[in-house]
């Protein structure tokens, strides 16, 4: 499991065009996500911006279940964390959410490519995958 963000480009003629597009978007998306994650974590560690849950309080709280932790700290569930983005610990969720957004964004890019190739079955599979990921991210499934 290495961090190999820059793709090794061998014989590209043998690689299908949609696969090349997906790989490029994946690499770019992951770079961006990790850069955001690193930046927000440095901000969190330096204490420049106050966190929602003070760092010294964490050892008393991280042994609680997620439900009890949320109740004890006021940690937002669903997408309500966006409202508290000014807190340094919540700010880290931007990078984490970006990591989890890379795949749906890549799939959104795949759909028109499959349609262009008249690969309707795979276009439908990509659309269904987007729908599943949106369902998971929206909180409707919960």
């Amino acid at each position, binding site marked *: *499991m*290495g*961090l*190999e*963000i*820059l*793709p*090794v480009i*061998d*014989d*590209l003629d*043998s*690689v*299908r065009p949609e*696969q090349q597009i*997906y*790989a*490029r978007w*994946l690499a770019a998306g*992951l770079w961006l996500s*990790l850069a955001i994650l690193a930046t*927000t974590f440095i901000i*969190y560690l330096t204490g420049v911006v106050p966190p929602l849950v003070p*760092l*010294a*309080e*964490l*050892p008393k709280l*991280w*042994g*609680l*279940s*997620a*439900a009890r*932790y*949320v109740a004890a700290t006021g*940690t937002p*569930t*669903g997408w309500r*964390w966006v409202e508290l983005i000014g807190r340094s*610990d919540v700010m*880290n*969720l931007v990078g*984490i959410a970006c*990591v*989890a957004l*890379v*795949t*749906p964004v890549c799939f959104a890019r795949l759909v028109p490519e499959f349609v262009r190739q008249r690969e309707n*079955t*795979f276009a439908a599979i*990509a659309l*269904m*995958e987007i729908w*599943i*990921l949106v369902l*998971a*991210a929206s909180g409707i*499934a*919960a």
Partner: protein
Amino acid sequence: MRSSTILWLIGFLLLAGVAAPALALAAPPPTPPVAAAGPWWVWPLALFLVTFLIGIVAVLAGVGGGVLFVPIVSGLFPFHLDFVRSAGLLLALAGSLSAGPSLLMSGMASLRLALPFALIGSVFSMVGALVSFQVPADVMQAMLGITIMLIVLLMWRAGKSESYVGDGGKNDRISTALGLAGVYFDPVADRDVDWRVQHTVAGFAAFAIIGLVGGMFGLGAGWANVPALNVLLGVPLKGAVATSNIVMSIVNTSAAWIYIERGAVIPMVVVPSLIGVILGARIGARLLHRLHPVVLRRIVIVVLLLAGSRALLKGFGLWD
């Protein structure tokens, strides 16, 4: 290892998910969590060091980081299993995403092959993550213990057998309709390797179960994806390993959103783990040619056996 053995083992994993709650519910109630001793920074620092080692060992032994991370960290650290599972899942997700571009561009992984199986896996991974929040922590611990034991069995059996190398077996009707066949260049063997897919329906069932277990425990899924792709579907080993990464990156995404949505992500647990594993994996990749992978794989099996036993005993309230 034959495809029927794989199916049996995967079936056992599902059975574990059904049987363990009944067993663990008979256990005494868990004791309330005790605040971890010492300053706050000791734990993230220790987490970084442990995940750094996990990163090295994971690469050398050819297993995913998530499958080592969850049982080891939940056994050694004071974090609730909910947060360990979410970190394990995000760690496996980031790892598979980072390997994805190279594997796709080299042609070793097939996006076309990954898509239908990842779709099924995503649905069940989301269901697994949702179900996991309804199950008491001690029951989850016991289920994790049983699952880890079965993964150990799977790894042990896989290590003893010759992998299927893709002898050009026949496509079935579904895989023919989806065009699930291809060719990639193997630089080590210095030749093109043809692959095609068989037992597609059984493959869908296997990926549904793998997705469910992966989403519940945050284990990633490389440990099961590779045998399912290789032995069951008949994809040659290198293609199976590469495509497993792509499947994992898609399947883990749906469960990751459930954990984020539930507020089950503590950045102070996730980020040091991610950095530790990524840096460890880089060192592991450099050491790869100096150490004997078979010996390391045996060490990993022993470590998982111990970590799985710890989770099992913790779940039954016998070792808190």
